[in-house]
């Protein structure tokens, strides 16, 4: 039975190219499948183009959902990046 994990954060800044890149680099290091969910849209966290296409902006809620052997660690790492990387505003 695969591990599954999920957490939600409110963005402190827009999910522009650089934080989207940081998110995807982190996600791609895990074996778990990771989704980024914003409102009714979702994207594969390992695809930076899909993450950027979400157009998530400051104040929006973003849910990270992972399924796989290292799902918990993947969610924790990505939430940590979103908490830090979106503060700079780009």
């Amino acid at each position, binding site marked *: 039975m695969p591990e599954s994990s999920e957490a939600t954060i409110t963005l402190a800044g827009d999910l522009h*190219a650089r934080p989207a*890149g940081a998110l*995807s*680099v982190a996600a*791609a290091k895990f074996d778990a499948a990771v989704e980024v969910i914003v409102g009714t849209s979702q994207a594969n966290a390992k695809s930076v*183009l899909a993450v950027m*296409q979400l157009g998530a902006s400051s104040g929006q809620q973003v849910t990270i959902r992972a399924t796989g052997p290292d799902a918990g660690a993947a969610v924790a790492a990505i939430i940590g990046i979103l908490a830090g990387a979106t503060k700079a505003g780009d």
Partner: protein
Amino acid sequence: MAANVGIVLVSHSVSLAEGTAELAGQVGGAAVTIATAGGTDDGRIGTSIGKIAHAVRLADAGVGVLILPDLGSSVLTVRALLADPDDLPGQVVMADAPFVEGAVAAAVIAAAGGDLKAVLDAAQEARHARKL
């Protein structure tokens, strides 16, 4: 820390190659090596097999190099280089991908430590990514 796949951006224009490398490097972060081969040997619009070969050697860290061409004769010049691979590192492949999106997507997966196939797939999947 394991070595990362290197990326070579081949463009007819020096500034297009360098600007795309700058953007992809910002998105992918410091872990990824992106080398450029823009313009002809004397700096005009065009491509140079010598510049591409040099960039491939710069980008190679021993685990493969992905080459992204911009348009038309960039592809032909890369093909000519790959047809005579004696001076190139072991694994060098060319991606069939949009230039900017492919570079950014490939940089992210290379930075994460993906192997050459994963980096190639990321670049080539970029053709399906919607912008709007």
